[in-house]
């Protein structure tokens, strides 16, 4: 820490001597530098740890980054910020994620560290993960199974809610854009003695609209969302903090004239954090999440539920610090997982109990050397399956360069759907589950080097994931239908590079690039559609005067084309034909003007270079060309300061 203070002090002194900047500007620079050095992350290790010291390479998307991206939900944001991520459409315009070759069922999405229930075609409802009250997003790429268990084989995305220490804050925001796209949000936080409350509400809407050209789809399905959350914190004593939360989410999608798809989520939880003594704390929590799908029949006005996933999760984590620097973390989770779905025979239901125990030892030998070893044991009642996975990671810092390396064993247990599906695909064919599936297992390696000098940062990394028993569907001649099955030896490797730079005069730039190569054995019923080259970049400028400020951000993403070896038959996996899906680039310009105390006026031009797909593949963005939006954000509390 002393070194950090010296650095800040040195930077401050040099800046003061060598530059003609105002005191406000220098203050802003110091804050930015300070923030970079003192950023605390929790996702990689499940305990708070300085970002710069963490051996788990963690990408943090700050509240400022979220503002610069003008994103509504997590899919908008991740695509703008990270290369190697693509949200495209599966059947029926259901959103599907590909992150470094892993699908949505291999990337764990968390809200304040808690899992979210429900899936559609293996993906959680990303529109539920809105950013209205998000303080920051932490992303850990690569296997995190040894910390989080199944579904974290490809990475973890943790959305961390904003916390305010002010007596009260109130923000109201609105945004209106093409296709009658509307977004309204309200956030209220209150701190009164031992009690803090945070309330958040958001509504979004967009009309259905016709695409300019045909293709896999010719009309975008519009709809709307409602999202309300409340978090209440009670500091019982200096050592004990209790947090209760509740949330409701509703989405309606107007895919068909006579049937509207409805999605609801009810969530709640209680968490207690007890500081037993210096360096020892215990966190115990209970979490409830229920995700429902229903069909609203316009003609009969009936709202009939055909899917419900209910997760009850109990969790305990204990941290013990030895010698003031080595931290032992032990804990366990137990989850009751209930699933009723139209994809089971006779709309049936299944239950499963999963339980796990994990331990991790964080060894901080020196300030420039950190090693973490950990392991986890999981049990799944329905398949009577248990699995052990381990991880070792290390960080070594030499001058301005930080080296990180990690090996992690990953796994993903078959889901209830994959085990018990019995679904008639419109009379065309059946899809059957397979109770005898083995868990996906993987060996994952990651290395990186990070160079930091002042507000310049560059990271170069490489990764390799060797996945065995990957679960997919394949044609069964015996059953004359698709059946979930394990396949062998999928390997994914790549290179990840990131450069970011901030200047003292308010200019910032970031560029990220990823190369991904996925290898599948010929003859296996799976073909890779991962784009090999992807990049994101941002150029931003921020300047503040006494009563006026401006922030301009140009965000771009570039995705290369990809050639996919598609099977010519659904019942044989020997014959393939190459299909080339075009690459594209999308740019977004966002200008925010702070016109008065806490009042921001935002203007956005999306798809700046008017990209219109000639053919709408499921992997092309649902755009009709350049679009415009305006927005207003009012921090009411700022008016009283």
């Amino acid at each position: 820490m002393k070194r950090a203070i010296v650095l800040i002090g040195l930077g401050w002194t040099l800046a003061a001597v060598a530059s003609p900047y105002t005191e406000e500007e220098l203050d802003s620079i110091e804050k930015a530098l300070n923030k970079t050095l003192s950023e605390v992350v929790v996702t990689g290790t499940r305990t708070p740890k300085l970002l710069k010291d963490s051996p788990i390479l963690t990408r943090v998307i700050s509240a400022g980054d979220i503002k610069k991206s003008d994103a509504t939900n997590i899919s908008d944001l991740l695509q703008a910020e990270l290369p190697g991520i693509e949200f495209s459409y599966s059947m029926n315009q259901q959103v599907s994620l590909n992150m470094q070759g892993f699908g949505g069922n291999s990337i764990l999405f968390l809200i304040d560290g808690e899992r979210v229930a429900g899936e559609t075609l293996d993906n959680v409802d990303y529109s539920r993960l809105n950013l209205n009250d998000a303080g920051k997003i932490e992303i850990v790429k690569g296997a995190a199974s040894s910390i989080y268990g199944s579904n974290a084989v490809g990475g973890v995305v943790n959305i961390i809610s904003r916390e305010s220490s002010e007596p009260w804050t109130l923000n109201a925001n609105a945004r209106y854009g093409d296709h009658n796209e509307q977004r309204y949000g309200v956030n209220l936080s209150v701190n009164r003695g031992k009690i803090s409350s945070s309330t958040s509400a958001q509504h979004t809407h967009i009309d259905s609209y016709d695409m300019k050209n045909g293709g896999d789809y010719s009309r975008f399905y519009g709809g709307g969302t409602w999202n309300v959350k409340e978090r209440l914190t009670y500091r019982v004593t200096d050592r004990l903090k209790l947090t209760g939360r509740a949330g409701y989410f509703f989405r309606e999608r107007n895919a068909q004239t006579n049937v509207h798809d409805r999605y609801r989520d009810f969530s709640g939880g209680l968490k207690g954090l007890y500081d037993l003594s210096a360096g020892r704390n215990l966190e115990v929590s209970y979490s409830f999440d229920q995700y429902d799908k229903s069909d609203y029949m316009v003609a009969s006005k009936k709202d009939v539920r055909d899917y419900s996933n209910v997760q009850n999760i109990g969790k305990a984590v204990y941290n013990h610090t030895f010698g003031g620097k080595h931290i032992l973390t032990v804990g366990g989770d137990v989850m009751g997982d209930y699933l009723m779905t139209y994809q089971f025979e006779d709309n049936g239901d299944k239950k499963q109990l999963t339980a796990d125990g994990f331990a991790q030892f964080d060894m901080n030998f020196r300030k420039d050397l950190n090693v973490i070893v950990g392991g986890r044991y999981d049990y799944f009642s329905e398949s009577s399956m248990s699995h052990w996975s381990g991880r070792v990671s290390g960080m070594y810092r030499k001058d301005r360069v930080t080296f990180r390396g990690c090996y992690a064993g990953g796994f993903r247990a078959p889901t209830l759907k994959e085990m018990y599906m019995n679904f008639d695909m419109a009379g065309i064919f059946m899809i059957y589950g397979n109770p005898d599936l083995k868990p996906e297992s993987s060996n994952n390696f990651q290395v990186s080097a990070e160079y930091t000098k002042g507000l310049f940062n560059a990271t170069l990394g490489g990764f390799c994931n060797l996945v065995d028993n990957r679960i997919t569907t394949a044609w069964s001649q015996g059953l004359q239908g698709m059946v979930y099955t394990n396949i062998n030896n999928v390997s994914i490797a790549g290179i990840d590079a990131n450069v970011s730079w901030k200047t003292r005069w308010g200019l910032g730039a970031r560029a990220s690039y990823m190369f991904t190569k996925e290898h599948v054995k010929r003859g296996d019923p799976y073909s890779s559609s991962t784009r090999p080259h992807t990049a994101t970049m941002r150029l931003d400028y921020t300047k503040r005067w006494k009563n006026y400020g401006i922030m301009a951000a140009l965000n771009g993403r570039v995705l290369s084309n990809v050639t996919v070896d598609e099977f010519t038959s659904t019942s044989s996996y020997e014959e393939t034909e190459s299909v080339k899906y075009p690459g594209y680039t999308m740019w977004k310009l966002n200008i925010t003007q702070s016109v008065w105390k806490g009042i921001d006026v935002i203007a956005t031009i999306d798809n700046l270079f008017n990209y219109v797909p000639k053919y709408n593949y499921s992997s092309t963005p649902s755009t009709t060309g350049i679009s415009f939006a305006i927005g207003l954000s009012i921090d009411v509390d700022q008016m009283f300061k």
Partner: protein
Amino acid sequence: MILAGAICIMSLSSCEGIFSDIYDEPVTTSEYGFVEPSTKGEAGKIYVNATDYKRWTYIDFSDERIDTLGVDEAEPADWDIAIHRYDVKTNGGAVAETTESDIYKAIGLGNIAEESFVEDIWTTETIITDVSNMMAGYLEYKESYYNPEMSKWLNVDKSEMPPIYTPSERVYVVKMKNGERAAVKLENYMDDSGVKGYMTLRYIYPL
């Protein structure tokens, strides 16, 4: 501790969810046919199970009777219109599409021009009888008469998966071969659970 937690969690009443009463329960019925006959100008209701690709459902307005027979079976003696999935044929009749969506407004449309009525056509690749080989690239059809006018009551755009269903919401006037007329509107093509092929028809007979 984990075991205790497991027992605790699995015993909670919320383990199968909450607020189930905000949803409607689908009404399952096996009562098909003239569930509400049309009398004295009042619209009636016919409920048809047309989920099977291999069957036609024959409707006789005068006898208020339906017969469901295989596509290879002989047609019954008396019938007025027949439904196969969303396809319609008439028994030597013709159909005119009106611009009305309210079936009672069809009562005042007694003088529809003769040229507005469309007779059945013979078709070889419209009546699909087997979709199980769709993934292999072919469908099985059955030759049959088919009324293209009345089949407009539900547009099925199969260029996307899943297909997009758009009902016309129009009233159709059926002219039988004996000159009698009936007004028919497709009110719904699904049951409460969203299963397609369960057809609810509103009708007025005689018109």
